[in-house]
């Protein structure tokens, strides 16, 4: 079974339309809401973990897009600026999903973006600003996807 973390952005024109339940009904996907924020009448953002066969995840994402949901793969949005990371490990104690861990015995910090849920803790704690775009729920972020 594959798993993908996706950010769904519902613009005002579709934000009250029920869409997500169909991922389970029509595509047999397990979805797990990691975080969600609704700005009434403006925008809704949901961070979903999708689990299922790779093929069906892809179809599900296609279905969402057909319904005017903006879909972004978290792994495309969140990244580490490698030159800035000094492998201190300060982020590893706060990462809630184990996306940031220390490898043994090298004591280097590895970042598994597939496990990241963009909670933003690493961005706050990193003394060197190495973790990029790790918060997706910045209230001022509205429209960021449009300008891309």
């Amino acid at each position, binding site marked *: 079974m594959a798993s993908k973390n996706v950010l769904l952005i519902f613009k005002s024109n579709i934000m009250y339309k029920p869409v997500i339940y169909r991922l389970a009904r029509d595509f047999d996907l397990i979805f797990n809401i990691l975080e969600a924020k609704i700005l009434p009448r403006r925008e809704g953002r949901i961070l979903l973990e999708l689990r299922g066969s790779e093929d069906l995840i892809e179809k599900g994402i296609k279905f969402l897009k057909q319904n005017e949901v903006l879909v972004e793969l978290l792994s495309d949005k969140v990244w580490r600026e490698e030159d800035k990371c*000094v*492998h*201190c*490990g*300060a*982020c*590893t*104690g*706060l990462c809630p999903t184990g996306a940031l*861990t*220390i490898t*043994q015995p*090298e*004591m*280097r910090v590895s970042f598994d973006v597939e496990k990241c849920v963009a909670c933003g*803790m690493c961005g*706050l*704690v990193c*003394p*060197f*600003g190495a973790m990029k775009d790790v918060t997706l729920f910045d209230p001022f972020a509205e429209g960021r996807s449009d300008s891309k």
Partner: protein
Amino acid sequence: MGEFKINKTFAEINKKIKDGSVVVLTAEEMIGATKELGPVEAARKVDVVTTGTFGIMCSSGAFLNFGHAKPRIKANRVYLNGVEAYAGLAAVDCYLGAAQTREDDPLNKVFPGRFRYGGGHVIEDLVAGKEVKLEAFAYGTDCYPNRQHEADMALKDFPDAWLLNPRNGYQNYNCAVNLSKKTIYTYMGILRPDCTNANYSTSGQLSPLLNDPFYRTIGLGTRIFLGGGVGYVIGNGTQHNPNVKRSENGVVMGGAGTIAVKGDLKNMSPKYLRGASLAGYGCSLNVGIGVPIPILNEEMAIFTSVSDEDIHAPIVDYGFDYPEGGGSPLGYVTYAQLKTGEITFDGRKITTAPLSSYAIALEIANSLKDWITTGRFFLGEPQEILPTVSY
């Protein structure tokens, strides 16, 4: 010195460096060597053990002479990229502290402040070859009439630029936890409430002063790896305290010895001098230091073979106790335990994370090893060792 089977001098080791016969190991490699050969044979074979550390060291800064302006100025306020440098010295000398924030930094007004740019970042920018904006202000005198001077300056434009750090390389340090009910933002990182995570900050078995616990070979004049270049220990650092509780192997069980260091910024690298921003706390500088430890006798072989299992850090509460002026240990934990990413405290498993980079500390120890092995770096014999206690 008659008590030892092996007796070497700095001069003898330097001679071996010169003729290329010197044997150098990193402090990590020395653990196995001493175990395998025994201390006497290890001391016979190994001449130098290299150490390393790369952590946040707030008590750091740069002494800068920015050169005389035309007309001349006796600056009494100096800013570099908006960060103030202390200018209460002669005309164009100033000291830029690593922890100094920008004049317009919002600090902790919106908590936790992010402290994105400060003295440490200016130092990193200078070492990286970037130009920084110098602004100097003065009240004007007969001999120094200029009242305002502005220039874009790169490191090469400063007649003198030293890294001059009054307290670096803490011999050991606290393992910080938070027993309060709210998240706290400290110089030991972010600590969740109810003792959910613990942070520590030394390179343990690689750390310079942990490999020479009684400072037998370290003092004023010790030549070191500093910020990617060569520097010197210029004496004990501030707050140096050899009288801290020690375990049976002589290793201190808490923050104890410190070193003051100096080096020419112009031979340093931004890889080993990195500006740091600690949310809710402030700006700082990550400093890379490596101290070579001569194996003068078998006792030094024993000292330098200390491993993470033998080094204890005190667990200290940063929620209530430390801020109130306390800091008494709630318990002790070894670096070997801390490095597993989890310790048991108060019957509960809690996550641990380092703040000091072991990976880069190892790189430093290896670079220093390379410098010595290839005859590019000679040991500096201290003219005065750091204040110490007897074993």
